[in-house]
């Protein structure tokens, strides 16, 4: 009985974390790093995301009520951050000259990534660990389920099991880059920017929705 509950929850968490859908977007974010470095970043970020999820399971309610943060703020926060990341992905590299310049460099055999002058900053926590993997969706579900199930052990086990799947997919993701090649990655970055913008906007709309609901109940 218990094990079926755990696996059911694990499947839910896995689906909400959506590693398969997120992997290309995350890959586009780390495309400028070496292959081995990418795998390391993926692993680290997934572990960070796990820590955030576990932290939320145990302390979320206390922490949020202490700071007087309502649930809509968590959703809006995720949405805003994702939207900003997407904006950056679409418009920073998308000025046509830079893209053309990049492609020319690739074709003359140089490393196309040297074109962008500002030093590439390694993504830390934001945006991969949160809000992409441990996004507001996952955190809300964890909070809801831990109220429902009333057993920390079951939830923690479910999160850990879900994370086995998430970690293996994330670590395998960099191999996708080998298949796509550099041109493919630039195209992917643009496409995934759009997808991220949509996910972010979705979160924003949801947050505003909750906010308006709350306004209506108050008045």
């Amino acid at each position, binding site marked *: 009985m218990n094990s079926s509950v755990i696996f059911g929850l694990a499947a839910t968490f896995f689906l909400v974390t959506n590693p398969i859908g997120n992997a290309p977007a995350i890959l586009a974010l780390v495309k400028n790093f070496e292959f081995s470095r990418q795998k390391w970043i993926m692993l680290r970020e997934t572990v*960070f995301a796990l820590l955030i999820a576990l932290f939320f399971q145990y302390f979320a309610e206390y922490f949020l009520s202490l700071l007087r943060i309502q649930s809509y703020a968590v959703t809006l926060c995720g949405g805003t951050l994702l939207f900003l990341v997407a904006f950056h992905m679409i418009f920073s590299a998308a000025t046509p000259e830079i893209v053309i310049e990049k492609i020319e460099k690739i074709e003359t055999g140089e490393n196309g990534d040297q074109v962008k002058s500002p030093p590439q900053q390694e993504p*830390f926590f*934001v945006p991969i660990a949160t809000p992409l993997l441990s996004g507001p969706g996952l955190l809300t579900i964890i909070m809801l389920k831990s109220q429902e199930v009333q057993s920390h052990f079951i939830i923690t086990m479910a999160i850990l099991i879900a994370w086995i799947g998430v970690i293996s997919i994330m670590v395998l993701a960099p191999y996708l880059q080998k298949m796509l090649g550099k041109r493919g990655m630039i195209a992917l970055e643009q496409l995934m920017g759009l997808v991220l913008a949509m996910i972010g906007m979705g979160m924003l709309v949801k947050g505003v929705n909750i906010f308006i609901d709350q306004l209506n109940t*108050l008045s």
Partner: protein
Amino acid sequence: MNDLSLFTITLTLFLIMDPVGHIAAYLKMMEGISSQRRNVVLLREMGIALGAMLLFNLLGESIFSYLELSESTVRLVAGVILFITAIKILFPSSVGIRGSFPPGEPFIIPLAIPYIAGPSLLATILLYSNMESQEFPMLMGIVLAWIATSVVLWLAPVFNKVLGKNGLGACERLLAMVLVMISIQRFMEGIQQFIQARG
């Protein structure tokens, strides 16, 4: 709005002061200053910051009435400023708003103001001092958060050693996430109050 608990005030102010996020900048500032001198400088700067906070706490009511501010305005301002500050920490690629301070030993700027007692912190104090009817928890909250911040900055070299550059970066960004959440909460509260005040 009912009174806030002392712990809420302290924690929120401490998070907005964001000492952990300023460790790297602080250590860079203190390069080439002898360790005894460092303590003097730190104490002086923290004293100035505390003075600014207490001033705003004291003047809260009169600033409100003089500028004819409503509570929703202050919430919106605190939210927007805090949001932009936190976003600058999260996405450091753009040229920092805080990049252009004069070099050398910090005096008032940049450590006391705006790193510790920044505009978002002062706006929050303004807001809380207006919300909180009693003087005592507010003063206690400010002083406690201030002590915690001073201790963290005083121990900055230890933190730096234990966490390393990457660990510090991770903490910085995690706290910035919390700041974004607080700022959005403030902003939405401002909108809520605005709508309710219109009826």
